[in-house]
């Protein structure tokens, strides 16, 4: 709890955003909603990274959460809260299975990353061919009636609702990650990342620590996917479970600052507007692919000149005399 109190500037920032959301117009609301989504997903990805586990298949956890939430609440009529919880648990379990396989067969580093891709792609192909969830044709949620809809029951609503919903999970995620990183598990994860053999020699339980971090990371990602499913109203395996999304979620934390608490948030505030702006620019000039080019070049520049990420550099500028 004390760790959380020391994070008051971040929490104040989030509180400010909640107020801001009430006064800005829907365009900015949806833009910031996307920022929160990437900030949240980036945090979950970054959490695994602190333990040295590179996930290149994070869309798997997101997609499982999204499909579980949608299918359970729509096809089977579950309470949406329960459906999201079920999705989170399912993502968590799959994450644990992948981690167990990784540790059991000593699949480490980039090879572990390949394992996550393999699972994500395998699952995507299964969903592509699974009738119940709509296959490649997609799964569509029923339209809601705005007059009778109660957002806290249906977990669906308008732009402002999703703005607040994604802000809420971002704040909750931030709090959870902060508390965990300041607990003994946070120290253990960092130690495993630094030097697994030395950490184990000091009694750090490698398997348990890794399973725990992935269970949390995947579970949270599943929740993010669940909220996303409710917002999008339609799900396609390729877009909600695809490799592209897996890569997109890791750009914000890398740009913002790997391993730092606030880094993914900063990164998302940088990356999402950049993505939107380059889209607009690309469309207005009519040059096909210009958006990706701009996006790519800016990312390249940031990584070249701020290899540790934006946030750690800002922190150092704010406290220039701090000894490292």
């Amino acid at each position, binding site marked *: 709890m004390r760790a959380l109190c020391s994070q008051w500037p971040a929490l104040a920032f989030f509180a400010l955003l909640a107020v801001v959301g009430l006064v800005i117009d829907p365009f900015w609301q949806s833009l910031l909603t996307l920022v929160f989504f990437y900030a949240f997903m980036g945090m979950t990805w970054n959490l695994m990274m602190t333990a040295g586990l590179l996930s290149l298949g994070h869309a798997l956890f997101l997609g499982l959460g999204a499909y579980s939430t949608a299918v359970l609440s729509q096809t089977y009529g579950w309470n949406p809260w329960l459906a999201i919880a079920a999705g989170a648990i399912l993502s968590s379990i799959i994450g644990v299975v992948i981690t167990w396989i990784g540790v059991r067969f000593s699949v480490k580093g980039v090879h572990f990353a390949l394992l996550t891709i393999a699972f994500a792609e395998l699952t995507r192909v299964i969903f592509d061919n699974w009738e119940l969830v709509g296959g490649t044709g997609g799964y569509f949620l029923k339209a809601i009636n705005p007059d009778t809809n109660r957002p806290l029951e249906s977990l669906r609503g308008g732009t402002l609702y999703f703005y607040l919903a994604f802000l809420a999970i971002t704040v909750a995620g931030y709090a959870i990650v902060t508390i965990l990183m300041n607990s*003994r598990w946070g120290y253990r994860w*960092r130690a495993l990342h630094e030097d697994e053999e*030395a950490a184990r020699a*000091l*009694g750090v339980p490698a398997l348990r620590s890794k399973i725990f971090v992935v269970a949390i990371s995947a579970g949270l990602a599943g929740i993010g996917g669940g909220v996303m499913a409710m917002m999008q109203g339609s799900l396609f395996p390729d877009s909600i479970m695809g490799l592209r999304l897996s890569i997109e979620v890791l750009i914000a934390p890398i740009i913002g600052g790997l391993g730092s608490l606030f880094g993914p948030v900063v990164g998302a505030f940088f990356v999402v507007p950049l993505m939107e702006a380059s889209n607009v620019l690309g469309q207005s000039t009519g040059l096909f692919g210009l958006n990706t080019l701009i996006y790519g070049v800016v990312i390249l520049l940031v990584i070249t000149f701020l290899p540790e990420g934006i946030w750690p550099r800002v922190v150092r500028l704010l406290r220039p005399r701090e000894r490292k």
Partner: protein
Amino acid sequence: MPEAMLAVRNLTKAFRGLIAVKDVSFEVRQGEILAVIGPNGAGKTTCFNLIAGALKPTSGEILFKGERISGRMPEDIADRGVIRTFQIVRPMRGMTVLENAMIGAFCRTPNVSDASDIAISSLARFGLRPKAEMSAASLTLPDRKMLELARAVSAQPKLLLLDEVMAGLRPSEGDQIVAAIKDLHASGVTVLLIEHVMRVVMALAQRVVVLHHGEKIAEGTPTEVGNDRAVIESYLGKRAKLA
């Protein structure tokens, strides 16, 4: 007769064709300092890796306080109180000195502030208290050696395995470590050390085990071993004189 804390029985480790440790047996008694010496490639570090669980023996067994630990995970063995250091020190470079020392403490307490207290007192023991907030990467080699020890001590070992802690140090720095090890031993920690520097072995060890080509060729007090014909021929050299 003091109880055997660690019993190594007929330990053998083969890497494909190469037999690194061959049918080695010895015991570490509760409360003693036992040194394992031998020329390079004698199998000392392999022996350590087997005890600490980093490697699994080809045959033979290792008992700690009567319980079989061979084949267990390194973290399980550490949890039981057998803590090793590495010959090439391995600080967690991205963490502070204090955080490094806290890692060991977490196998004794789940509480962060308790772990921090344990870590601070073991840093103080090795003169690292003023450097607690520094990044471990910024330490000098002697300080890194001290951190390696402090980190192990934070895990509150019953049996401490020290792999050539003096390597690469100047004699004066070595003396500091010898004093620290004596101090630890006085507080009740049993020590098993691998050492090349005979002066250190003579100063610290109550008993010595000599390995050569993976086999135990002698065992006894430092003086007995120093006068042993086989040891002199294979390791110390014919003209060696021990202090």
